[in-house]
């Protein structure tokens, strides 16, 4: 599919861009490992005092941390860099080049930047996920795995659409880089199952900054507590968000091209 072909091309370019800086890779590895250590140490601290956290058991929370790093890694790998580049391109006008290419501009801006060293986060996430799964053992069957995959995909689409909507505001606002930082600040809340938060915060983390769908819901699938309504809701929300993002993007392009005036 066209998406994957282009993603592959930009990925190769991303690798080559970073290959000049091997020291960076080590630095990022250290950073990510330290971050992971902090997260796991936090868990250890908590489970020294209790055996469950809002009904979540230690191995389930370990799996959740794994999802947190995995999804965070994917976001940092291709979604975030692309959207940051987009806001810059709108500002300095290099978006013009993208708009004269015979390819859907939204597709191009979604895959055009790959921060390759973020695969470290993805890798660490998978490792931790593996550890959590191993401890969860037989309780994760084919149904749970399928639900997990579906929830992950739905969550990914929601997160992507959210980022695109945020970045598209650059067509109207001038200084927008800071808006993207909102997601990073709020994402941290996703290291814990969203159900522990009071209602209003849970709502914000589900529908305003969709952290719940990105992390908690897939983790719920692994823990075997994902219900059909929630998974269905996630899929529905994914479709709605994606469509909304697409329409907003098209409106942004029209505005940029002075079509509305």
């Amino acid at each position, binding site marked *: 599919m066209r998406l994957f072909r282009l993603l592959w091309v930009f990925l190769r370019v991303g690798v080559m861009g970073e290959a000049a800086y091997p020291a960076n890779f080590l630095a990022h590895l*250290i950073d990510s490992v330290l971050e992971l250590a902090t997260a796991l140490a936090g868990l250890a601290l*908590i489970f020294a005092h209790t055996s469950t956290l809002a009904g979540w058991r230690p191995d389930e929370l370990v799996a959740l941390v794994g999802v947190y790093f995995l999804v965070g890694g994917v976001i940092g790998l291709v979604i975030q860099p692309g959207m940051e580049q987009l806001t810059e391109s709108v500002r300095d006008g290099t978006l013009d080049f993208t708009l004269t290419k015979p390819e859907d501009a939204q597709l191009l801006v979604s895959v055009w930047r790959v921060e390759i060293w973020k695969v470290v986060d993805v890798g660490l996430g998978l490792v931790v996920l593996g550890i959590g799964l191993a401890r969860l053992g037989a309780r994760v069957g084919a149904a749970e795995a399928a639900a997990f995959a579906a929830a992950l995909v739905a969550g990914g689409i929601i997160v992507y659409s959210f980022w695109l909507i945020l970045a598209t505001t650059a067509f109207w606002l001038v200084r927008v880089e*800071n808006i993207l930082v909102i997601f990073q600040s709020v994402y941290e809340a996703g290291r814990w199952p969203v159900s522990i938060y009071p209602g209003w915060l849970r709502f914000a983390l589900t529908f305003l900054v969709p952290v719940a769908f990105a992390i908690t819901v897939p983790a719920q699938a692994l823990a075997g507590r994902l219900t059909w309504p929630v998974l269905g809701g996630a899929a529905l929300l994914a479709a709605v968000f994606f469509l909304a993002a697409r329409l907003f993007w098209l409106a942004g392009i029209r505005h940029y091209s002075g079509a509305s005036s």
Partner: protein
Amino acid sequence: MRGLGDLYLQQLKTGLATMLQYRGSLVIWLIGNVLEPLIYLVVWSTVSRSTGGTVGGYGARDFAAYYIVLMLVNQVTFSWVMYEFDYRIREGTFSADLLHPLHPIHADIAENLSSKAVSLPFMIAAAAGLSVVFHPVFRLSPLAAAAFVPALVLAFLVRFLVDWTVALAAFWTTRVSAINQIHYMAVLFFSGQIAPLAVLPRPLQVAANILPFRWTVGFPVELLLGRVTGPRILAGFAVQGAWLLAGALLVRYVWRASVKRYSAVGA
């Protein structure tokens, strides 16, 4: 001394103007500074509720009180010099700063305070909001309130001096991010942010008393909440004073060595 006062006043004005300019980033930042203690507040309250009792002497509402106060104390004492230094050295703007007659730390302190002058009202409002939601329980005593202010001032100074010294690492290595990350972890664990220190296992508590981080955030918080009493308060002040001295000496000597290195390497 007049020069110092002028500097601080000037910096306050420009800092305020800059902050108003970058309103957007300010709001984003504030969200982050509220969210982090909030997350731990919720986590630990949940833990204490699931045990049905207290954790380390803290019940759910005690955790609420702790983290709300922590949020404010952290806001007053924190700094971002590590990131600034890295930028300054890479961009080469430090050469200009070195020519100033005043020690550059003063400009940084002034900048720090001026930005907080703007953000603090919002944080206090956030604290009030969180209090409404989480029903914290405060056991304030006039002694605690009186001792809190000097403890806070000392905490700010100790934290700033330590942060500034760590920031100087930028002169010595390009692996600044790893150092910053380790520093951040140490702050997280030993200043009472990831959990009140009473909740930590014993060895970590001992380490926390030796390292400066407890004295930069945790101590004033615990003091205000009445968890440090009597002679312990005085002992705490003593340790803060010791770290203040140590910090000042560190800044002095590491700074000198760093400048020498910077000039040798070529500005």
